[in-house]
């Protein structure tokens, strides 16, 4: 459980950073003259919080297989899409007229979701490299001790 909360906390900070970047890129491209208020700074934080809810709820003590994990990630992505789209547009705002905006937001959510997984993978890759180096050092020191005997 502790690891699960830590994982989600890390995801939260990654999401907040990525949402900031997405707002900057999309804003610069599509609405460069748009004036924003201080409340806009809350958007990434709220998106981050909403984005980790499905992950927090879908906690499983069981070790999942690769297939189960993929299914779980798809369900998680769809839940996040639904939660954030409802939060942004409201139930009444999800109309055909807003299709371009809805699609743009949905794509952004999917991109951020994938990026979180990729970034976590690179963090893990770094950890794995350190673990392998430590392990090698330990195995060599033990082998040297054995040789001395």
């Amino acid at each position: 459980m502790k690891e699960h909360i830590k994982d989600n906390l890390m995801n939260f900070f990654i999401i907040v950073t990525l949402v900031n970047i997405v707002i900057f890129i999309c804003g610069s491209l599509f609405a460069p003259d748009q004036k924003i208020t201080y409340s806009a700074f809350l958007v990434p934080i709220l998106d981050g919080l909403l984005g980790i809810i499905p992950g927090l709820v879908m906690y499983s003590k069981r070790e999942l297989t690769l297939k189960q994990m993929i299914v779980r990630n798809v369900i998680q992505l769809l839940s996040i899409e639904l939660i954030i789209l409802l939060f942004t547009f409201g139930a009444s705002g999800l109309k055909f007229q807003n299709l371009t905006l809805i699609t743009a937001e949905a794509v952004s959510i999917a991109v951020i979701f994938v990026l979180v997984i990729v970034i976590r993978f690179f963090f893990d890759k770094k950890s794995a490299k350190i673990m392998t180096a430590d392990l090698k050092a330990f195995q060599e020191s033990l082998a040297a001790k054995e040789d001395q005997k």
Partner: protein
Amino acid sequence: MNINVKKIGETEEEYIEIGCHVRDGRINDIVRFVENLDGNISGTKGEKKYAIPVTEIFYIESVDNKSFIYSSKDCYETTGKLYEFEELLKGRNFLRISKSVVLNIMKVESIRPALNGRFSCILRNGEEVIISRKYVNAFKEFISKKV
């Protein structure tokens, strides 16, 4: 149960003899304990019984309440429970890496990330075993303390 310890001459080979009415689970536990202390774990393959040197074990896995010992090429069934092996082999660089696997870290060639915060250990014989998320921190700590 009476315990007799007899000193023997330097030239004689050391031995342990157990006198029992029936060879039951209790006696088997004692035999297994002594064998483990001696650096071997007993396992069966087919009808044959083997004494597997601890240094040759890659990992021990528990499947459906049965434990299996994996060496470089062979797999042996054993009567011991996984938690017993975890306890017995603690001082011999064996570590629990998931609910069902105790791994000999001396047989690990490299570690790489698997999906969802898990890690995969590539063993010297090319096999892969997964370190589950729950055990990752303990694994990291264990290795960093050893260096």
